[in-house]
């Protein structure tokens, strides 16, 4: 067993407090907050929900039928995310006078609107509906975040095409919002496809912005990295493979891919041999060693979440004790963060 060097510690048990002192704002409403998926017909809304949350293979979405009524998907995938995903079918234009739709009701309980643009189609035809939505929703609920997924990028041959489309959409949209005096509204653009990791990466970014504890979690991960010489760390929702926090080093889609593949491998192998036993127990842990010099560590920290980290060039014998101990501290600290959330919401109720 490697000796643990005290100065190397992540945080002493008495030092957990700083994390809990930060005021954490709870979601105002008692009703489950919503993320709304919108876009023209066949742009890929159902496919995204199915691939990410119901584990349908990308090829399998070819058989999906056009949605005819509003669909709700509960994502109770982890303790931090308690969302309802709402798909407004493309064939239902919510601004059409024949469609009975209470805009107030739709947008007031909504945290984010994800607007999906099919880039394999003429994307300009998707823009007018986007302006209408932004104008209407922003008036009702100025806190709503608008996320634009430029989707089906797998059909574009070259990376240059993707960037060109993104640039062109970005300019058109900002110019038109300016014309309608809505330049204060911030839109975020993502290039996505269900055939690669980009949809997971984009949804991760969307979801993270909605987590009030994000700064605390990021701090914790940064500190962990620093103390254990970790290159990249993620807090993952295992089921959806969305990460709800990562450290503040730049995004790296290749790293996301590696980590996500590790999760698949671990879950697939464990599932084969875990017959009968409780698949949800919080004890799952794993270490992958690649070429004797790169390491991936995974540890479940509660029923839904796992801490996954990547490091290179360290001696596993020396670091594994340190990692294990700090993972343990991280888990404790996370419980603290989480407890504050439940306490606050109880206080609200009283």
């Amino acid at each position, binding site marked *: 067993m490697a000796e643990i060097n005290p100065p190397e510690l992540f945080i002493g048990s008495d030092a957990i407090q700083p994390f809990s002192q930060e005021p954490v704002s709870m979601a105002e409403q008692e009703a489950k907050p919503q993320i709304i998926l919108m876009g023209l017909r066949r742009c890929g809304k159902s496919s995204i929900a199915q691939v990410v949350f119901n584990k349908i293979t990308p090829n399998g979405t070819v058989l999906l039928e056009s949605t005819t009524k509003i669909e709700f998907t509960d994502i109770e995938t982890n303790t931090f995310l308690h969302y309802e995903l709402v798909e407004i079918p493309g064939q239902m234009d919510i601004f059409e006078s024949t469609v009975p739709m209470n805009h107030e009701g739709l947008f007031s309980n909504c945290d984010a609107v994800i607007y999906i643009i099919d880039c394999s189609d003429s994307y300009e035809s998707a823009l007018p509906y986007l302006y209408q939505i932004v104008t209407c929703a922003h008036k009702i609920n100025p806190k709503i975040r608008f996320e634009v997924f430029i989707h089906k990028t797998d059909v574009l041959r070259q990376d240059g095409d993707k960037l060109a489309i993104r640039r062109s959409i970005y300019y058109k949209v900002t110019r038109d919002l300016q014309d309608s005096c809505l330049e204060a509204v911030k839109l975020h653009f993502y290039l996505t496809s269900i055939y690669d990791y980009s949809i997971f990466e984009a949804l991760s970014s969307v979801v993270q912005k909605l987590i009030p504890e994000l700064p605390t979690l990021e701090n914790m991960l940064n500190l962990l990295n620093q103390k254990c010489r970790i290159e990249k760390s993620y807090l993952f929702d295992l089921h959806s493979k969305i990460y709800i926090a990562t450290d503040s080093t730049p995004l790296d889609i*290749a*790293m996301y*891919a*590696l980590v996500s*593949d*590790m999760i*698949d*491998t*671990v879950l*697939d*192998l*464990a599932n*084969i*041999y*875990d*017959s009968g*036993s409780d698949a949800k*127990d919080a*004890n*799952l*842990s*794993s*270490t*992958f*060693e*690649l*070429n*004797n010099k*790169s390491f991936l560590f995974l540890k479940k920290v509660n029923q839904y979440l796992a801490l996954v980290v990547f490091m290179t060039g360290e001696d596993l014998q020396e670091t594994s004790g340190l990692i294990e101990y700090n993972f343990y501290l991280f888990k404790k600290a996370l419980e603290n963060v989480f407890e504050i959330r439940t306490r606050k919401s109880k206080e609200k109720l009283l």
Partner: protein
Amino acid sequence: MGNKKKVLLMGKSGAGKTSMRSIIFANYVARDTRRLGPTMNVEHSYIRFLGTMVLNLWDCGGQPNYFDNYITPQREQIFKGAEVLIFVISVETKELQDDLRLYQSCLEALAHLSPEAKIVCLISKMDLIADEKREQEFSVRESEIKRRSLPLKVTCYPTSIWDESLYKAWSSIIYSLVPNIAKFESSLNMFADIMRADEVLLFEKATYLIIAHSVRRKHPDGHRFEKISNIIKQFKLNASRYVANLHTMRMEIINGDLKILLDMLTPNTAIMVVITDPLVYPAAISLNIQTARKHFEMLEKLDRAPAMQFGDPKV
């Protein structure tokens, strides 16, 4: 020379021969095979296996004019000295009788020139058949093929490049080619007993095909071996994009009492140990693998020993 195994891969053009060999031996993922063009004449590949064994794979392009050449002018060159004939028939072929006629002409040549050769028939592209119909569609073809092979014996497997069935078929083919496989198996059994393991699997390291296994505890899933090959191979391929030149992998997974450990065993093999016995600690597994390493390296070399004794005296 004695360890060079000639393997014939034949079948109509488009049946999927090059696709499967590229996935098993050349690190393709299924998607990549869409870019493959038809094979011109015969493509040879030499695949080193377990250090001493070399698979000499003859991927014979299946367009009609090539086929005519194999059967007549090149007959001897193609069919002589073969250890295995793998004949691939696509499940969606419109004229099964056509495929079978080609198959029979191969059998005839083989019976003359390599009478000892094993014969394997793969029904490919099973993914194009609806799930519930697969078994029936396969067995119809299997019995027809068996009948048309008489008096020769043939083994048939359903395959698809999109799932693990490909690994099952190729594992069995490789298994039948590894010389002292019995020695590997008995060593593996002994190792599993000492470790109190539920099961121990031995992989060829480049392909992650399972070449031997020891099962000490019944498992309900009969398809797990090929699933595991598939899972680990996929990870290896994906990880190679991030870690250049990926040559060794070690995986440890612990969930309560369940411990799964994958590690390199010899330069050519990897081992996976599965243990649910709560009294066995993960560290003990690593230690035991360490100890077993020497033994298995010996086993691999044993195979070469006679060649060294009777080889070129000048060496």
